[in-house]
């Protein structure tokens, strides 16, 4: 912090004309980039609460026009959406629990300097980052394990990620002084007690990072569900989202009689769906972002 203010004042002394032009250039560009990123998000939100007539004709382009809540009310009445939400909540909580437990199980031994074979085991894990069996052999494996169309197919094949193990291990190595481990070990503290009494309580921040990483991933993923599930009752939200957003299929639309009004409603529903699908993330975002950046930085320290 101190160094930054000295730099700031140092920079100010010799702020030449050229520097000021550069400054202006950078600010203008960054504002432009930020607007470019923000615009689609604002537009989607506005479209979700605007009269669909103005949306499809392009009259509404930024500020909501003719408020309507029809998109949201229709969505909340839709069986698929509620079902998807329920299933996703289940997959996210069960999946994340498995993910975090597995990550700790791998990262804790690997972070111990006195753990013989840590290099070999890390290499054994890391090799899978560069080479894999590929889609088909994995698919056949899941099939032969009779996991197809069960919720296990969503949770078990993605039980842990190598990168997160590395992040967690690096954080444990840097966050917990080796002397602490050694002295506890000399006092007769066993490896398991050390995990629960010393290591975990001291690594709550990185655990939070891991929970968030995995939870967001579990929330957003659809691929395994798409290839392994065929029973709509088990579909996560993202699969219903795909049907509604990408394929433009909405239950109400198909069963109900065809009318312009319904087609227009369908448009609003799509936009509302984007907002609803990201609601938990929208609410948590400022918190999420901070922790995520932390995870990236720990990961960047180098595995």
């Amino acid at each position, binding site marked *: 912090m101190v160094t930054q203010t000295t730099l700031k004042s140092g920079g100010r002394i010799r702020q030449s004309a050229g520097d000021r032009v550069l400054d202006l250039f950078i600010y203008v560009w960054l504002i432009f980039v930020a607007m470019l990123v923000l615009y689609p998000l604002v*537009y989607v939100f506005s479209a979700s609460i605007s009269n669909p007539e103005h949306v499809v004709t392009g009259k509404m382009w930024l500020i909501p026009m003719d408020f309507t809540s029809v998109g949201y009310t229709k969505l909340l009445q839709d069986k698929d959406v509620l079902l998807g939400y329920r299933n996703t909540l289940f997959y996210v909580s069960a999946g994340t629990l498995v993910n975090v437990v597995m990550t700790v199980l791998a990262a804790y031994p690997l972070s*111990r300097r006195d753990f013989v074979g840590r290099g070999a085991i890390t290499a054994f894990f890391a090799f899978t980052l560069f080479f894999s069996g590929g889609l088909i052999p994995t698919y056949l494996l899941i099939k032969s394990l009779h996991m197809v169309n069960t919720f296990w197919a969503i949770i078990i094949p993605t039980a842990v990620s190598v990168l997160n193990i590395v992040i967690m291990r690096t954080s444990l190595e840097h966050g917990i002084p080796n002397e602490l481990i050694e002295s506890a070990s000399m006092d007769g503290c066993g490896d398991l007690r050390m995990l629960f009494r010393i290591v975990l309580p001291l690594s709550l921040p990185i655990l939070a990072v891991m929970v968030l990483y995995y939870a967001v991933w579990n929330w957003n993923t659809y691929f395994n569900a798409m290839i392994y599930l065929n029973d709509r009752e088990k579909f996560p939200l993202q699969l219903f989202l795909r049907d509604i957003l990408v394929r433009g299929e909405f239950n109400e639309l198909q069963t109900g009689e065809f009318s312009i009004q319904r087609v227009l409603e369908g448009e609003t529903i799509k936009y509302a769906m984007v907002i609803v699908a990201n609601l938990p993330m929208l609410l948590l975002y400022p918190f999420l972002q901070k922790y995520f950046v932390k995870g990236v930085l720990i990961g960047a320290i180098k595995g």
Partner: protein
Amino acid sequence: MRSRSSLVKAIRRHWVLYLLIAPVIAYFIIFCYFPMYGVQIAFKNFTAAKGIWDSPWVGFVHFERFFKGYYFSRVILNTLQISLYSLVIGFPVPILLALMINEVRTKWFRSFVQTITYAPHFLSLTVVVGILFALLSTQKGIVNHALRGLGLEPIAFMTDPHWFKTVYVLSDIWQQMGWGSIIYLAALSGVDPQQHEAATIDGASRLRRIWHINVPAIMPTVAILFILNMGNLMGGGSLEKLLLMQHDLNLESSDVISTYVFRTGIGGAEYSFAAAVGLFNSAVNFLLLVSVNYIARKAGETSLW
């Protein structure tokens, strides 16, 4: 002999640690290494009834069929084009963004830009592609309304094969550039401010200082990420996103190796053929990664290993 007995001793002393890590090792053996063993079906005529081991060997038949097949050049070309396009356009963007954000001294503006540019990273691909369909729709999308407003012809972004790669790559940049800049910002925060002060006193302009101090500071990070990207040159984008954006109308420019494997394998149940195509793909990627890493190690100090 001695190392073996010391291993036994270590395991006996810390058996709890080995017990803890055992489920994770089991997971990797089953879900990562067993599929590698299963790759041999690429050289066999796999039938579910016979299983991986007992299916008959057929050599390189499936590879030959792929190399001589109608789709070979199309699929390879699309894969390379999407990867190169992402690399050439997408790779520098986070670097430029980080260099610019790093120059911002106004705290709230800095965090404002960061908060906004990170946000799309948290959206799911289904949502992003859904937004693309909505905004780029020929009839109802706001982008085409704007084009009409400017007196231009509307463009069928989502169905015209000419536009597929552009939409794919640019939307990817939109979603990931902010996030990608974090790692460069971290490298930039490690720059010693005294270097800047000294250069300022010597009369260096901001631009010169960025070029001679900041850019060299992030070069090792740039090199590592570049190697990783090169290793994925035959990756051809994200299968998940491609599948969402793909349909019959744009197939000629959207069909890459991974979607081809998906369609023939999972869709068409031609397991051995699809596994052969997939194996060819990951072998090429692996070779690329190893050779780019080799070149980087010879040329400079940075390499993955």
